[in-house]
C-alpha cells in the first residue's frame, strides 16, 4: 500500500487522501486519515459530529471490501481480541474486518485457559498483549475497563462493551445503518425495551443528540433511561419524551430501535420476570407505520420481534449487523493503517 495527496488546486491545501492498494484507490479527506492516529475508541462522548461523519464516510468507501473485494490495506498488522464476556457479532465482525483488509487476528480465548485465571490483573494483561499486537479490542464485564486498558496499553484500544457502560462501535454501526437506510438529520426515533441497562441505547441516544434527533423512549417504568442520561440529552437541546406504550409511537417515527430485555444485567431475577416480554413487534403492529420506517435491533433478539417481521420492508437488523464489518474496518484503518 502507498499513500499520497491530491491537491485541490490551491498550493498547500491537499483535500483528498489516496489509499492505493494493489487493486484499488479510495479517495477521502486528508483530515480523516490523521485525526484518529494512535487514538483509542472508548466512548461516544469523545466523538464530535465531524469525527462520526468521517468514520461513516470511510466505512461507505470500504463496503465493497466488507463484501469480499480483496485488500491488503492492513497486511502485516495484528489485532488482538480480548473478550472476557460472550460475544458473537462483535467479535466475529472485528475478526472479519481485520482479515478482509489483509491483517491478522490473535485471540485471548476463554479466560479460564489464560493468565486471567491465575489472577493476573487486566492492566498487566493489556500491557503484555499490547506488545504482541497493533491494536486491542476489549469486552469486559466491568464498567470503565476499556479506559483502564487504554491507560496501560501501548497500542490503540477499542471498547467492544464494558459492562453496562459503552459500546461505541455498535453505536457507529447503528448510525451507519440509519444514514444508509433513513437519514441522520432531524430523525424521529423510538428506542424501545431495556433503556436502563442497555448500553447501546445510551450511546446511541447521546450520538443522535449531535444530529438534532427527536427521541421517544419506550420502556416499562422500571427500565426507564437513567435520569442523568436524560438530563444530558435535554441539555443538548434534544427533544426527549417517555412512554410505556409502543402503540402510541409506532406510526409516527422513522426508526424503531428495539432492544432485548437483558436477563444478565438484572441483579434480581424476580424483577426480570416482571418485565420480560413487555414488547413484541408483529407485522399487524406495523399496519399503519410510515412507509419508510426501518426497524433496527442490536441482536440477539429473544421474542421482541416476531420472525414474521423479518420479511417486511421495514426490517433492517440483519443488514445492520453486516454493517458492523465496514464500520469496524474504517476504525481499524484510521487507528492502525492510516500512516504513510
Amino acid at each position, binding site marked *: 500500500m502507498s499513500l499520497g495527496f491530491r491537491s485541490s488546486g490551491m498550493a498547500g491545501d491537499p483535500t483528498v487522501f489516496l489509499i492505493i492498494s494493489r487493486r484499488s484507490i479510495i479517495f477521502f479527506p486528508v483530515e480523516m486519515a490523521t485525526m484518529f492516529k494512535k487514538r483509542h475508541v472508548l466512548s461516544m*462522548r469523545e466523538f464530535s459530529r465531524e469525527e462520526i461523519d468521517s468514520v461513516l464516510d470511510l466505512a461507505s468507501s470500504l463496503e465493497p471490501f466488507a463484501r469480499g473485494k480483496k485488500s491488503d490495506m492492513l497486511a502485516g498488522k495484528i489485532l488482538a481480541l480480548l473478550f472476557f464476556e460472550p460475544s458473537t457479532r462483535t467479535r466475529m465482525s472485528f475478526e472479519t474486518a481485520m482479515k478482509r483488509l489483509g491483517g491478522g487476528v490473535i485471540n485471548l480465548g476463554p479466560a479460564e485457559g489464560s493468565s486471567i485465571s491465575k489472577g493476573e*490483573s*487486566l492492566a498487566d494483561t493489556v500491557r503484555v498483549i499490547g506488545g504482541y499486537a497493533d491494536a486491542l479490542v476489549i469486552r*469486559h464485564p466491568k*464498567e470503565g475497563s476499556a*479506559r483502564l486498558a487504554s491507560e496501560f496499553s501501548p497500542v490503540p484500544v477499542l471498547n467492544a462493551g*464494558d459492562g453496562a457502560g459503552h459500546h461505541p462501535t455498535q453505536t457507529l454501526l447503528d448510525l451507519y445503518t440509519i444514514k444508509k437506510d433513513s437519514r441522520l438529520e432531524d430523525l424521529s426515533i423510538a428506542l424501545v425495551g431495556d433503556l436502563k441497562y442497555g448500553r447501546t441505547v445510551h450511546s446511541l441516544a447521546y450520538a443522535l443528540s449531535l444530529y438534532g434527533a427527536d427521541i421517544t423512549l419506550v420502556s416499562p417504568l422500571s427500565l426507564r433511561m437513567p435520569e442523568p442520561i436524560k438530563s444530558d440529552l435535554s441539555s443538548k437541546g434534544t427533544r426527549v419524551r417517555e412512554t410505556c406504550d409502543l402503540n402510541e409511537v409506532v406510526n409516527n417515527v422513522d426508526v424503531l430501535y428495539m432492544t432485548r430485555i437483558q436477563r444478565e444485567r438484572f441483579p434480581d431475577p424476580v424483577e426480570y420476570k416482571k418485565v420480560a416480554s413487555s414488547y413484541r413487534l408483529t407485522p399487524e403492529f406495523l399496519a399503519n407505520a410510515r412507509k419508510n420506517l426501518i426497524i433496527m435491533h442490536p441482536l440477539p433478539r429473544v421474542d421482541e420481534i416476531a420472525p414474521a417481521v423479518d420479511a417486511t420492508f421495514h426490517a433492517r437488523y440483519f443488514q445492520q449487523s453486516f454493517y458492523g464489518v465496514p464500520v469496524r474496518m474504517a476504525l481499524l484503518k484510521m487507528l492502525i493503517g492510516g500512516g504513510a
Partner: protein
Amino acid sequence: MAEAVSRDGLRDEPRELRVKPIKNGTVIDHIAGGQALNVLKILGISGTTDATVSVVMNVESGKLDKKDIVKVEDRELKEDEVNRIALIAPAATINIIRDYKVVEKRHVDLPGEIVSVVRCQNPNCISNTSEPIKSRMLVKAKNPVLLRCIYCEQPLTDRLAEYLI
C-alpha cells in the same frame, strides 16, 4: 457578650468554645456544621496522627448558621490538599498561622480532577477492583458539586461523604 477576637484572626468563635490559639499551623474555618470529621478524613488525618489537632463543632456562625473549625498544629496544608475540602465544605477558609499570626488566608477551590479522595459509587466500576489504578473523578460542576468517574463515567452528586476513601 462582646465578640471575641482571637490572636489567630478568627473573630466569630464564642469565648466559651474557643480553643487555644495555635502558634504555627493551619486553621480551617467556616466548615459546614457537622463536616469537620470528614474534612479530617479528606486530609488523611486519623487517630494515629502525631500532629496536635483541635476540632470545634457546631459553633454558631452568622455566615453558615452552624460551623465547624479544625486546627492542625505545626503543619501548613498545601493548596492541593485543602482544595479537596471544597468537596464537602465549599465555604471553608484556610488560615496559615505563623507565630500566632495569620500570614495567609484563602478560600478553597475544587480542582478540575480529584484523585484518590472519593471512590466511585458504581459497584461494578473497574476502579472498585484490585486493579493498580487510583480513583479519579472529573469535577463537572462546583455548586452544587457534580463529579463524574473518569472510568465508568457515572455521576456522583449526593452523599459524597459516604464515598470518601
